[in-house]
């Protein structure tokens, strides 16, 4: 059973890996698009990934945020993600390069800008997509990260404290702007970047 799982995973993850590498290469967006079109045209079968493909990765199962991460790849209501969607999600984690900072000021913000990275993380908290992290949503995340040993009141007081610290407009929830402000000291560019060395 494990062997077959692993072999299935090996089938999935080279795909995933190679897709990810394409994303990370400093080629221009246009080239990437051309590549992806070629890819899709030539390998239709592997062009779609489902949730099960992700769930086969064993480490994600023990990751407390595993389900949410998987859901982040799939857009609303869809059960399958194509290469484009996959790439969009992973592009958030490309390291910010210096030469990108100066050019293209007028164009749309690249996906791996600091703001978009933080927005990605914010969306993982905010399940109901109301642009606020409410106390319940925070509690859910805390519960996932902390485990089962801690009582609800304790988690509640931690959540209260967290919201109280971050909240500036008094709505007892963390909006995106407050989220950004709280994390201003954290080096998000470094933390939320993956260097694809292959």
């Amino acid at each position, binding site marked *: 059973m494990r062997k077959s799982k692993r072999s299935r995973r090996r089938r999935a993850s080279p795909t995933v890996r190679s897709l990810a590498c394409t994303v990370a290469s400093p080629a221009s967006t246009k080239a990437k698009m051309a590549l992806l079109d070629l890819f899709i045209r030539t390998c239709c079968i592997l062009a779609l990934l489902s949730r099960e493909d992700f769930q086969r990765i064993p480490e994600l199962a023990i990751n407390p945020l595993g389900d949410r991460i998987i859901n982040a790849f799939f857009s609303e209501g869809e059960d399958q993600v194509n290469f484009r969607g996959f790439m969009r999600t992973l592009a958030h984690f490309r390291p910010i390069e210096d030469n990108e900072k100066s050019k293209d000021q007028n164009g749309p913000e690249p996906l791996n800008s600091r703001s978009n990275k933080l927005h990605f993380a914010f969306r993982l908290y905010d399940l109901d997509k109301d642009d606020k992290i409410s106390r319940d949503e925070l509690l859910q995340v805390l519960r996932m*990260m902390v485990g089962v040993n*801690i009582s609800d009141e304790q988690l509640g*007081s931690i959540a209260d404290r967290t919201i109280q610290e971050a909240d500036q407009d008094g709505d007892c929830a963390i909006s995106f702007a407050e989220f950004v402000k*709280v*994390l201003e000291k954290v080096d998000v560019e470094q*933390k939320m970047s993956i260097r694809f060395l292959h």
Partner: protein
Amino acid sequence: MGAAALRALPWALLLLLGPLLPGQRLQADATRVSEPTWEQPWGEPGGITAAPLATAQEVHPLNKQHHNHSAEGHPKPRKAFPVLGIDYSHVRIPFEISLWILLACLMKMGFHVMSSVSKVVPESCLLIVVGLLVGGLIKAVGEKPPILKSDIFFLFLLPPIILDAGYFLPLRQFTENLGTILIFAVVGTLWNAFFLGGLMYAVCQIGGSGLNHIGLLANLLFGSIISAVDPVAVLAVFEEIHINELLHILVFGESLLNDAVTVVLYHLFEEFANFEQVTIIDMVLGFLSFFVVSLGGVFVGVIYGLIAAFTSRFTSNIRVIEPLFVFLYSYMAYLSAEIFHLSGIMALIASGVVMRPYVEANISHKSHTTIKYFLKMWSSVSETLIFIFLGVSTVAGQHYWNWTFVISTLLFCLIARVLGVLVLTWFINKFRIVKLTPKDQFIIAYGGLRGAIAFSLCYLLDYEHFNMRDMFLTAIITVIFFTVFVQGMTIRPLVDLLAVKKKQETKRSINEEIHTQFLDHLLTGIEDICGHYGHHHWKDKLNRFNKKYVKKCLIAGERSKEPQLIAFYHKMEMKQAIELVESGGLGKIPSTISAVSIQNISPKTLPDSNALSALSKDKEDEIRKILRSNLQKTRQRLRSYNRHTLVADPYEDVWNQMLMKRQKMQQAELQLQNAYLTVPANRIDSPTMSRARIGSDPLAYEPKPDSENLPIITIDPASPQSPESMDLSNEVPKGCGGLPPSPEEDEEGLVMRPKEPSSPGTDDVFTPGTSDSPSSQRMLRCLSDPGPRQEPEEGEPFIPKGQ
């Protein structure tokens, strides 16, 4: 030799220190073990002739009499019984050591008084100047000033500084930049050593007759000695300029890790200097020995760290000596590594890093504070002494000044450093996500200070193989002076000029902690999806392994299961509670805090902008009645003081009361949703509270490491509650209710039970130890000392809540 050495250790200690002191002692030279110069052991009656005056000890007059009788054979006129005498030689060594240390401390104090000078000149420079003055003074008096002996330096002065650095190493930044640090430390130092050695050899060859005889190996040895960035100097200078954490950890980490390289190169070239010919085999062996030295050092450190962590698991009954375990095990790690010529510094750092998370989870908070303060104290004194002695040794040593050699050394040191940093940064930036900007590179290059390690290493060379030692010493001292004075003094204005990012002083908030962990998990997940085993993946694996196996072995009791987030949160709450006690009590709670607790019950009520509303008269009376009646039940039980337990602190009791009050109010509030109730404002100024305010060192009192207790302590501060609900007699804290008020549950330390009942609320004069609630006695034990907490950062001020 070993057994004899052990027996002779206390004597050897003093004998080693003997030559340190001025006087008619032996001349300072490069011997490792100095011969005993003064043959008089203590209390020997034969010392009569040496000691000019009669001794003050009672033994002596009698012996003297006896001796006189037996020796002389005819009765001498009896000397009068000496009421007062002088015997300086008896205490000479400890006295002089204490004098030196006292001098160092007074200097430190003096610099802070002269704040105008210390703003411009870093402390290390001032200390060297003081050393020069003292050395000059001693020389002027006619005595020979002591030179900083290498043994004393390496065995006594250096370890506290390194242990302090290693124990409080900011591990997150260190591991994130480990690759960069290693490259700078290893490749950078190697480059420096060979570049400098080679160039100095060239200079020596063309330098004229005075220098021709210095061979390549000697030059390479010189290069390896002087190329190492010195942790002491870096710490001393960088500490004052508050540079951002990345640069600090890069330069500082480099200075720590290059010890392995320095040790290897030093021993290598020292050995090779004796050989006729250096073969390839020797070079290969040298290369291998680098790995042995560094990895061996780390291994020794890890072993001792694990043993220390394991020992700390069982120290719950002997809290008083807990800090000693930390110090001893680390020091033993250092010494053990030194036995095998492994890198002692790396052993020390590894042991500090490994033992810290587990020890901190096991020891009491008081022990933690003790460790912190002792380490800071020792390292501070050590550093001061080192710099003073550098100054004194400059005056005392024999110098051989050779313009060519010294100037070219200085020049090439700087060039080598700059070139090395530039080339390595170019290489490293290919792999870094956050690149090192040219400003960063400049600071890294400029921060390459040399210090006392180079001096001591050179001092260790023996004359017979290296007769140019004096010239080396002179050159090294010049480089040290230049780096410390010129670079040390100018780095601060340069940092300001270049607008280098400074250190962020604020404390890590709970938000940051939560979100950072969140991002860790997120990134681990993404990495797993990509199949890319990066930094997060391995960190996650290590954490899991740690949680599953290691923590269970090394951490006592319930704490092994406590998630890091919870520990962090409790620590924050503790600090703020103490802060509240210190700042004068509950009356000053900012409105935002009450807002949070309000929102749980009545979202409609808006918080006042200022203090909570005052108590009405009859509510107050009711409270007092309740308190009085309940307090009658409690009895004071104060354990007698003995050396094995720590007497409870009066502040602790007050703090306990505060927490109890808060917790009571919170619980009551949850049951009833009503108007505010506060502690009457005038309670703030009770003597106890003002004493608490004056108290300088807040010692946190942790709850018992019991998961049921935890919810209670962490409740938000005083929140609205109705007077009726304040039925203190019936309310039992949730978790504490389970604990019987039995003395054996208690750790030593915070044993103070509530004292005899006084009227708690009436005159608002709290005598220390008064408790105003019955269950506070149970609470006291819950809050008694043993709770360990991880300290996320060290030395940070407590932040006031909600401000």
